[in-house]
């Protein structure tokens, strides 16, 4: 077309883009390190399935239509990349064709056909997207001018390319190609336009115009397309559409194994942390670069909001705002942080100590000024989170919200000493008597009186340790669950023992509320006890205990094979050690605990057990499985009052009551308490029984 103009556009466009991108990358590099250069094959698989496959959009029953809409726009975008390259080529060389995609191969033809259809589809989808936003107005969407601008640009890109090809068609076919435009004309595959119906359709819209006009349209649409594309490219890093560039890397770099980044084991003895204020996250530069990338990648889709139990009950935890607030804080401090990182890099091993002090002082000055909690994020927001992971489960770009919240809480609890004081009695109880209720540790095994349960201190030669947990030991309602569990294990002839008085709280809620000191204290004591007895296998009835014992204790030298009680019971049934009668009368549903489901992917075993004992089978709640709705007790919230908005447990209990069942099965002592309390408040506790799975099993065992 016009090599000079094309060159200028490309040089300017790409130069500006590069500059922006370099700064964005430098900003990430100025953040804390994290190791993600591992398990490459697993990472590629995630990227292919989640990012390229758009799994969380099209694989979700809810909002399938809009999921598909975006998927098409994305897939269209990917496919059209090749077309774009071709167009840039054509800017320089008339009739430019990419190798492999030229008219010499079937691939070329297939490509132009695909491209053509996709452009049509993308245009329709972009139109649908605008319609959704503007007319249907789904609650989760943030209606900003940016959204419309980008959708507009997408439509312009589609329209310009279609009209460009349309004008080409008209010139070539209707006006006898006066400018000798190139087109596909392979004798084997035929003329190009037989393969591109949508462009031909576009052509018919302007076929009434003269050849000169068509040629003008061709030129205008060509440059409009190029300019729009380069503008679009440069617009991407500036807002939520940065995800176009960062989503694939972000999914590639997501946490593996454990659903999100595991909480770092903080060195609480290290005195230098007080100088740097580096316990937890106190300044924006203490995020690691992957977390920074998360912030860049938030598409502001609002799915996290929709599933968040705190947000849907009117508490101020709006994760999209959470992401945005942190992102803006990061970007506001970009220049300073990059400078600060350069200073940090200049400190070498042999740097003079005085110079080091000077550099550190200058670094301190460049740190962010705003109080992260207080000015950027409010306290209520930070502490409202129940750590349920619903947000992470639906996020199409795999942002890991929860570890950030925990790290921010660490900063607050450890460095600032600011955290909801309601937690104090629970912490004090932990410290003194190893349980959040502060009940005398000497009573921990009283629930087992008369049940003939072995205590490790008397006989440690058993196959399994039954980890009872604080609720199972001290909470009157949960003690019944422990008793049922014992009945089942004894019926199955399993060799097991409990720690009794030596068992202490795993420290889960301390860690979730940022109190690493308390957590490490509990963990250390428990690990010592467990290792003394050479414990190998543990059965836990509480998903929080299970999660901490299995995934977090290894950090401090506690490596055990931990099985959740539903998993264990399922195995017992499958191996014939216990038999279930289908003697449960009444209608039954199951409430998936967050820490069992979303944290540990245990969804099937509880269902299999319940199906095995229920005559009427199992009804599923609307929000079930991966999208189960939290009971509200996680993240330390069990020990805090909900003073804002509607109570989460009430919301869930209402949902359960709406299913018209006579029993709701749970698999977690927190859920048991919260759901049962919710039923009491709804005055439905006589109609709807809340039972732990093992209570149901014990009642229906042969």
């Amino acid at each position, binding site marked *: 077309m016009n090599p000079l103009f094309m060159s200028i556009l490309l040089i300017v466009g790409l130069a500006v883009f590069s500059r922006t991108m370099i700064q964005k990358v430098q900003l990430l590099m100025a953040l804390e390190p994290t190791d993600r250069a591992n398990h490459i094959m697993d990472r590629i698989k995630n990227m292919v399935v989640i990012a390229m496959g758009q799994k969380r959009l099209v694989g979700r029953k809810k909002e399938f239509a809009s999921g598909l809409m975006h998927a098409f726009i994305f897939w269209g975008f990917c496919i059209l990349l090749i077309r774009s390259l071709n167009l840039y080529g054509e800017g320089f060389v008339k009739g430019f064709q990419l190798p492999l995609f030229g008219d010499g191969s079937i691939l070329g033809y297939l490509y132009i056909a695909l491209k053509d259809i996709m452009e049509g589809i993308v245009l329709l989808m972009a139109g649908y997207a605008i319609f959704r936003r503007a007319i249907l107005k789904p609650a989760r969407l943030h209606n900003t001018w940016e959204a419309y601008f980008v959708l507009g640009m997408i439509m312009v890109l589609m329209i310009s390319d279609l009209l460009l090809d349309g004008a080409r068609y008209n010139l070539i076919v209707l006006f006898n190609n006066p400018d000798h435009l190139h087109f596909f004309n392979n004798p084997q595959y035929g003329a190009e336009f037989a393969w591109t119906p949508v462009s031909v359709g576009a052509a018919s819209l302007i076929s009434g115009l003269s050849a000169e006009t068509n040629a003008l349209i061709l030129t205008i649409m060509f440059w409009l397309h190029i300019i729009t594309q380069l503008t679009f490219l440069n617009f991407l890093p500036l807002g939520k559409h940065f995800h176009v560039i960062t989503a694939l890397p972000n999914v590639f770099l997501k946490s593996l194994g454990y659903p999100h980044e595991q909480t770092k084991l903080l060195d609480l003895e290290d005195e230098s942390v*007080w100088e740097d204020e580096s316990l937890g996250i106190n300044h924006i530069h203490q995020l690691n670069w992957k977390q920074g990338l998360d912030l860049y990648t938030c598409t502001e889709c609002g799915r996290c909001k929709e599933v968040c139990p705190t947000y849907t009950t009117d508490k101020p935890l709006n994760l999209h705002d959470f992401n945005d607030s942190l992102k803006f804080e990061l970007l506001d401090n970009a220049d300073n942080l990059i400078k600060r990182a350069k200073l940090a890099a200049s400190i070498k091993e042999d740097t003079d100590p005085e110079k080091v002090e000077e550099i550190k002082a200058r670094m301190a000055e460049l740190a962010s000024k705003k109080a992260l909690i207080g000015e950027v994020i409010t306290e209520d927001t930070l502490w409202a989170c129940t750590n349920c992971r619903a947000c992470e489960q639906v996020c199409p770009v795999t942002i890991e919200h929860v570890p950030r919240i925990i790290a921010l809480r660490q900063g607050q609890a*450890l*460095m600032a*000493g600011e955290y909801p004081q309601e937690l104090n009695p629970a912490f*004090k109880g932990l410290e003194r008597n190893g349980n959040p209720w502060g009940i*005398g*540790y000497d009573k921990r095994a009283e629930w087992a009186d008369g049940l003939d349960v072995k205590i490790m201190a008397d006989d440690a030669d058993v196959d399994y340790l039954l980890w009872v947990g604080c609720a199972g030991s001290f909470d009157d309602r949960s003690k019944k669950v422990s008793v049922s569990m014992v009945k089942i294990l004894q019926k199955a002839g399993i060799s097991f023992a409990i720690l009794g008085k030596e068992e202490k709280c795993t420290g889960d809620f301390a860690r979730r509320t940022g109190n690493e000191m308390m957590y490490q204290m509990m963990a250390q004591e428990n690990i010592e006890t467990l290792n003394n007895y050479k414990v190998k296998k543990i059965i836990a009835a509480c998903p929080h205990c299970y999660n901490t014992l299995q995934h977090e204790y290894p950090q401090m030298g506690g490596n055990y094979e931990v099985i959740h009680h539903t998993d264990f019971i399922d195995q017992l049934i499958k191996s014939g050690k216990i038999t279930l009668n289908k003697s449960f009368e009444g209608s039954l549903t199951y409430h998936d605990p967050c820490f069992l489901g979303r944290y540990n992917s245990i969804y099937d075993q509880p269902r299999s057990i319940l199906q095995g004992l229920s005559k009427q089978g199992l009804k599923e709640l609307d929000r079930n499985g991966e999208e189960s709705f939290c009971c509200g007790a996680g993240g330390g919230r069990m020990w805090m009052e909900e003073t804002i908005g509607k109570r989460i447990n009430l919301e869930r209990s209402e949902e359960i009551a709406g299913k018209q069942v006579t029993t709701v099965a749970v698999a977690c002592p927190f859920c048991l308490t919260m759901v049962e309390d919710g039923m009491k408040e709804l005055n439905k506790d006589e109609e709807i029984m809340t039972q732990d799975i093992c209570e149901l099993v014990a009642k229906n065992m042969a």
Partner: protein
Amino acid sequence: MKILTTVKKVVDVELNIHVENGAIVEDGLQYVINAWDENAVEATVQLKENNGAQTTLVTIGGPDNTDIIRRCYAMGIEDAIHIDDSSLEKADSYVYANVLQKVYEQGEYDLIITGKQAQDTDNGQTGIILAQNLDIPCVSNVVAMEVLDDQHIKVSRLGDAGTEIIELELPALVTVTDSINEPRLPAMRGIMMAKKKKINVMDLAGLGTSFEEVGGNDLKSEIAEYMTSETRQAGQKFEGDAAQITAQVVNLLATEAKVL
């Protein structure tokens, strides 16, 4: 303003306490800071933070008391005096009061704050006896404190007729109850710094006195023996038709229990 705060290490009353052969079974017991003394420490630290008071704690007990001293340091107390003398294992309120008097006289304290009673003895006498012996004004069961000036504080006391607002001239002694505040959990920073702080440990000789002088050989009362507390047993429980069982119970209250 200089404040002296007394702190005692007592058995954790959450635990079951067993008595055998007239004595308490020590096995399995754990010892913690007296709850009301924790309130006293919190009140003291608040006076430091709000009024710039200087703070010192005093505790009487064995080497095990070190952990509660460090905890109080972590809460914000600046200095500690630890009277560690094995002869004091057998003491009564008077002996404690006399030892505390010696400590008090060696500093220039304006205010002594103690918890209203110790959870092991539940006596609630030591502070008041100390104040009486020092002839300084004393108010017990305090739920609020306010500094008026260098010489006066205003306190609220929970009395029988209601809440009494009393103005005290310093030096004075107050005993506090748990309604006064919620003792803070020591912050991490405090705990780290507390690890290195010095504690002033001394025995009675170091204090410039002796067991004899503080009345150790002349205890006014002694615990002859411990006995198990009788726990209340469950009585009769009635389930069924409300009208029927209620009538039954009312009848029993009148005829059997004779309380109606």
